[in-house]
């Protein structure tokens, strides 16, 4: 049986208590809102992407549970200063991890420190908490203008 410790790892608790890159980015080149109607989580992701397609800065703000906050915090940490192609690769890797079969080990090489969130797949009702920030990011980058929802 998977224990609570598999979900609430110390790194996640740490990011919940002191989220990195938290706040508004003004000015920014891209931004979007995301909602999880199930639990009321609200998230806003801001990016500054330069002409070389490098994510110069990325920030988030909003209200959410520890999983959604830690996930967003880790996301901003890993993407800051990276080329946009890195966002595409990580989006797919993260999505695969969150929806993988129970027995699949997370691809730690591809995911880096995001692998700490692999425990969510054992808690089906919490997967959306972890993926909300990524969907919000996608909506910001693609400039759809529509708020991201997890439903």
């Amino acid at each position: 049986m998977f224990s609570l410790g598999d979900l609430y790892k110390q790194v996640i608790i740490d990011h919940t208590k002191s989220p990195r890159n938290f706040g508004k980015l003004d000015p920014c080149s891209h931004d979007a809102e995301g909602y999880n109607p199930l639990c009321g989580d609200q998230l806003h992701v801001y990016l500054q992407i330069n002409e070389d397609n490098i994510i110069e800065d990325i920030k988030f703000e909003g209200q959410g549970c520890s999983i959604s906050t830690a996930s967003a915090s880790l996301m901003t940490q890993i993407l800051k200063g990276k080329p946009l192609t890195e966002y595409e690769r990580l989006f797919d890797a993260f999505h695969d991890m969150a929806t993988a079969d129970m027995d699949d080990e997370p691809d730690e090489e591809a995911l880096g420190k995001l692998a700490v969130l692999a425990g969510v797949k054992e808690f089906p009702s919490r997967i959306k908490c972890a993926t909300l920030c990524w969907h919000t990011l996608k909506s910001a980058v693609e400039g759809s203008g529509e708020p991201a929802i997890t439903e």
Partner: protein
Amino acid sequence: MNIEQIRDDFPILHQEVYGKPLVYLDNAATTQKPRCVIDAVRKYYEKDNSNIHRGVHSLSERATKDYEDARETIRSFFNVKSSKEVIFTRGTTESINLVASSWGGANVSKGDEILISHMEHHSNIVPWQMLCERTGASLKVIPMNDAGELDMDAFQGLLSERTKLVGVVHMSNALGTINPIADIIKQAHAVGAKVLVDGAQAAAHMATDVQALDIDFYATSAHKMYGPTGVGILIGKEELLKAMPPYQGGGDMILMVTFEKTQYNCLPHKFEAGTPNIAGVIGFGEAIKYIQSIGFEAIETREKELLSYATKKAQAFEGLRQIGTAKNKACVLSFVLDGVHPHDLGTILDREGVAIRAGHHCAMPVMQYYKVPATARASFSIYNTESEVDALFEALTKARDMFS
């Protein structure tokens, strides 16, 4: 009241979740079902399953009798004048939509006002918003105070001859507040407004006499009163229901159909188009009998006792802020805990076998009032015990320690 005996009536309670005894404290979302309700539904499917109001065979006659007997049980339970005034629906939500659509469509127009309260469930907000959008009427909101009690002075100020209907929840699912509906109805009637009472949360916890209260429309759901899901009632005054156009067209709601014209059936069938949830209705009737066998006096005494036990613990729990502290409230403990998001609480408590609700409880404006994204909610029922309340607070201590 013998709690152990009552617990024995509910088969589902005797199980473990993650190796811990189940502590079910999500009764405001739905209550568990006693064996008599489960047996009644099973008996219908095993012995009597057939369509009602049409067959001449024995099965259909038995099913029709049980269905109509359930209507009579429910009529007497809410002291409704006539069984013509008891309409079966899919639940509270459908009942309110029926009134908003049928009564609202015929009686509400531009310039009119619909008055609801700040603590309504989405099901008593959205249908009225939709009606206002269609008709050009406006939606007004009775404010509440920090304790989660309606501001009755403001209510009086909002009432006018423009008010066509007041929609109010009897007991708030998010806060536990019991609203002074007798007073609300009197004042609303004084300006000629009709009143719809959302009884979904209250019906299992206190007696409601629709005649004594002079309620125009009353809606509730079986599943919050130990009955099956997917079935509920709309109670309406006969003269109002008679004057209303049908809500849905179909079988059972007609007397005569030709391609030129249809003559509608009499009440209550006019509003029961299509084959209803027969098993659900029969189970609903049985659930009402179950409540009657315990009696509201015993239920109210016991639930007050339990709420006061839980409230004392909540007040002593460091970092816990109660949401909803009305003087008159029932068996709902809604709260937030410093440093732990309600959604995380829900997951952590689940691993301790404790089932609570975390979220906005389909009452987002209530969350907006308290400036919280969500609350954790423990809601109690007749089968809950003091030791289950202890288990809740032990689990909360674990959650708090985890994030400290």
